[in-house]
């Protein structure tokens, strides 16, 4: 299987259309000029829109952008980030070098690696943003790598996520704290747990979490997959899953399509233990009346996989300056504190508390996290995302093993 990314694109189709020389691109170092250029622009922000809370937050940010910078922000609502990637790819294919329809795209990991590898991104620009300093990236290396791929200024951090488990404290007393306990727990609580079907992101993350816990040595997971070692490294994972699946809901004959379905199953009492990639999800579910108020979240004993969500600008974006201003605004203390509010999004901040002034820190401390939200302390140890190769390889191996009987 040709797994390696294809090289630089052929100019064959692009040559069919001759293009005028590219106009001057905005230089984020000269920020005042970027702000001037951005004023009056319309920024099309392509972002997954499956969460009403996130949609409301983006709507709030759009209002702020209009009043603060005179930039109009339109949320292009995607059901799958791949739609945005498809669009940019089609534009590249047709030689559209300057009139792209996507100005800012919420991407992560694999999509980022793909877009960067195929020359679909504009940059570098992110590290020159005025608010980049608030990340204290030198001490927080996760701000400079996306699934181990070096970001190199091609995308700007936005929110932080981490794998958490949640359970109904009314029926479960001692939820399992690691994978081995999980297996035992499911054996005595048959059908009370399941996980989304890979390659659904949350399901794949569960696989990576399990592998990080079960693998003899996690070091190879941070390098590209070496096919000859794949079987031996992943053997403990498959052994674990083989034992786990008969104990799952529907005995592992069908898996939910994602985190939302899992949340619904929890609300319906079909399961009593679930997982999420958002530490605020359980709390949001309680507030929305979808989960019983007795639900609580926790992180496995050894910590869990966490990552940072990023924003990227496609190579042919029309409103690059506006997109930078939006990315910078979303990194501001004001925007990050607003996102941290569980009534809004409950999203953990990417900002480094150490880099903030006392007054700025107070903004965060004043916010009361909900009963099911985990404080930054309770989130514990964040495990780094393995190399994106692993995600892909695990997904395909899982589908091969369990996806088609």
């Amino acid at each position: 299987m040709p797994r390696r990314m294809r090289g630089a694109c052929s100019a064959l189709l692009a040559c069919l259309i001759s293009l005028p020389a590219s106009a001057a691109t905005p230089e984020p170092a000269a920020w005042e000029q970027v702000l001037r250029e951005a004023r009056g622009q319309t920024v099309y922000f392509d972002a997954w829109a499956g969460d009403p809370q996130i949609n409301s937050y983006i709507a709030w940010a759009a209002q702020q952008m209009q009043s603060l910078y005179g930039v109009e922000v339109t949320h292009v609502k995607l059901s799958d980030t791949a739609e945005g990637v498809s669009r940019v790819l089609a534009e590249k294919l047709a030689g559209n070098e300057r009139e792209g329809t996507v100005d800012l795209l919420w991407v992560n990991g694999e999509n980022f690696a793909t877009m960067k590898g195929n020359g679909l991104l504009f940059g570098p620009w992110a590290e020159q943003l005025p608010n980049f300093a608030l990340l204290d990236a030198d001490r927080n290396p996760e701000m400079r790598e996306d699934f181990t791929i070096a970001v190199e200024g091609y995308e700007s951090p936005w929110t932080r996520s981490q794998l958490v488990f949640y359970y109904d404290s009314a029926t479960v007393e001692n939820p399992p704290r690691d994978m081995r306990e999980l297996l035992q727990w499911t054996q005595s609580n048959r059908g009370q747990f399941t996980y989304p079907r890979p390659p659904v992101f949350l399901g794949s993350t569960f696989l990576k979490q399990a592998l990080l816990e079960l693998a003899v040595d996690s070091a190879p997971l941070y390098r590209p997959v070496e096919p000859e070692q794949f079987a031996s490294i992943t053997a403990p994972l498959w052994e674990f899953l083989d034992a786990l699946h008969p104990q799952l809901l529907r005995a592992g004959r069908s898996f939910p399509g994602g985190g939302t379905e899992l949340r619904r199953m929890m609300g319906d009492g079909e399961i009593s233990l679930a997982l999420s990639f958002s530490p605020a999800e359980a709390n949001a579910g309680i507030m929305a009346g979808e989960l019983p108020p007795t639900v609580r979240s926790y992180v496995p004993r050894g910590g869990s996989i966490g990552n940072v969500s990023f924003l990227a600008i496609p190579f042919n974006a029309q409103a690059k300056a506006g997109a930078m201003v939006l990315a910078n605004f979303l990194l501001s203390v004001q925007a990050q504190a607003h996102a941290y509010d569980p009534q809004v999004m409950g999203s953990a901040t990417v900002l480094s508390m150490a880099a903030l002034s006392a007054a700025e820190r107070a903004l965060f401390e004043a916010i009361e996290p909900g009963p099911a939200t985990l404080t930054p302390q309770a989130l514990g140890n964040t495990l780094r995302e393995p190399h994106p190769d692993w995600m892909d390889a695990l997904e395909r191996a899982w589908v091969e093993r369990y996806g088609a009987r």
Partner: protein
Amino acid sequence: MALANAQPAKHALRLAPTLVLIVLIAPVALGLALTLLPAFGYLPVLGGERLTLTYFAQLFATPGLSHSVAVSLLAGLLTPLCALSLVLLFLAGTAGTRLERWMRRLVAPLLAIPHAAAAFGLAFLIAPSGLFMRLISPQLNGLDSPPDVLIVNDYWGLTMSAGLIIKEIPFLLLMALAALPQIEPDKRVAIARSLGYRPTRAWLMTVVPALYPLIRLPVYAVIAFASATVDVSLILGPNLPYTLSVMVLQWFNDPDLSYRFVAAAGALLQLGVTIAALLLWRLIEALGAGLGRRWVSRGERGAGEAVLRVSGQLGVGLAVLVSVGGVLALLINSFAGFWRFPDNLPGAWTMQTWSRALGEIAQPLANTLLIALVSTALAIVMVLAVLESEQRAGRRLSPSMLLLYLPLLVPQIAFLFGLIVATEFLRWAPDIKLVIFAHLIFVLPYTFLTLAEAYRRLDPRWSQLAATLGASPWRIFWRVRMPLLLAPCLTAAAVAIAVSVSQYLATQLIGAGRVPSLTTEAVALASGGSRGIIAVWALLQALIPMLGFALALFLPRLLWRNRRGMRGLH
């Protein structure tokens, strides 16, 4: 006989079929080519410059592929088989009864519910934690948590097929009811009854052989849709493995862009599966015709009448009941607060989901209406131009016009990506005009499908008579044909509106997401939304088609309230 003609309008009309075909087929063909070239390894922007078959090898090595193909084929055959038999049995058993008249009225609102909305309704009804189980738990079965049984997403896609059957029954009923008056079923049945056959059997023996050829194309459309559905499959279909269409979609959406090649190969395979389903159906047709002839020639008169009559009524009745139950499940969920499982009804009711949705609805609603109305109007004008030109030429259109149905048969995913590239090449900005054009590609074939039979079967004596009274072809068109065909035209428009409203990929991909519609909002929110949000948006999506069908039903009644002869003409 050559008619003298000098007016330019006439020439334009004569060219109409060709023009419509070009407008419609050019983008599909271009899109298809640009999508399918990668199947053979050609996609320069990703470094594919040599033709190769490796991607087919990779495709066929996909685990579970054969099962995916099998499920797609099964759904593609089971759906038309069940839906068509039930529709025919129902019509046979209820011809001329109150039940039939009642069904005529019900058919439209059932048809108005978009496929995805109906699928969600079904899931909300029959899932282990669905409305049905909640209503009977714990009183009837003692359960206090949902049973751990696999109903939705089953391995063979039977729930998916059931969802499709429920949705296609009203479509085929509408098509059959529109075609029936032209073959005068009453006379046929009367003759057979005078020979001693009981009514249901008489109908099946004498009407079906004449009716089937008239609804053959709609049946083919059902096959094509069922074998390649993406949305219904995602909601109700199996996921270990997925159906082929969903696999293709996921390959197209794979972050690893090299999977575009496999996706293209998969799209081609999907096309092959759809064609295979159609060919198998031809076989079933031949088999059915043979068995039917044998049945008729045996001349049995008595036995089985009650079974035949009741099975159709039961089947269609159940389908209607489940559809209505699904809508009810959507309604309840749209107002539900937290709803613990064994409770028969939600513990709390809330307006929050509705009020939030209604606050965001203005722009998507306006876009949806504009796109649906303009694409429908264009489609109606184009279809009328083609049919009128056929009338005036006095002969059937060339078989090449069957290409008109290409967009119904080719899986959308197989040419939409290519279509984006094509519009990019042409430097057509992704705006509402382009989206309307993309919708037209799907709306037009359905409009043609719904209207053509009625148009062609209109008693030719009406226009001959008008001509001998001195009316010009245009006067005949406007003053005779249009009024007489108003009801079928409005029905076709309602179908067209429903088709337009339900378009997701054509709106989202072609519009670059900049033209939000009710459906794009619904799908985006459904990708992460709760049951309440899904329910609200599914109902909102059904709203416009519902209005369209209501108008199509009541406008002719209002206009012709003093014209008894206009009733029952269609």
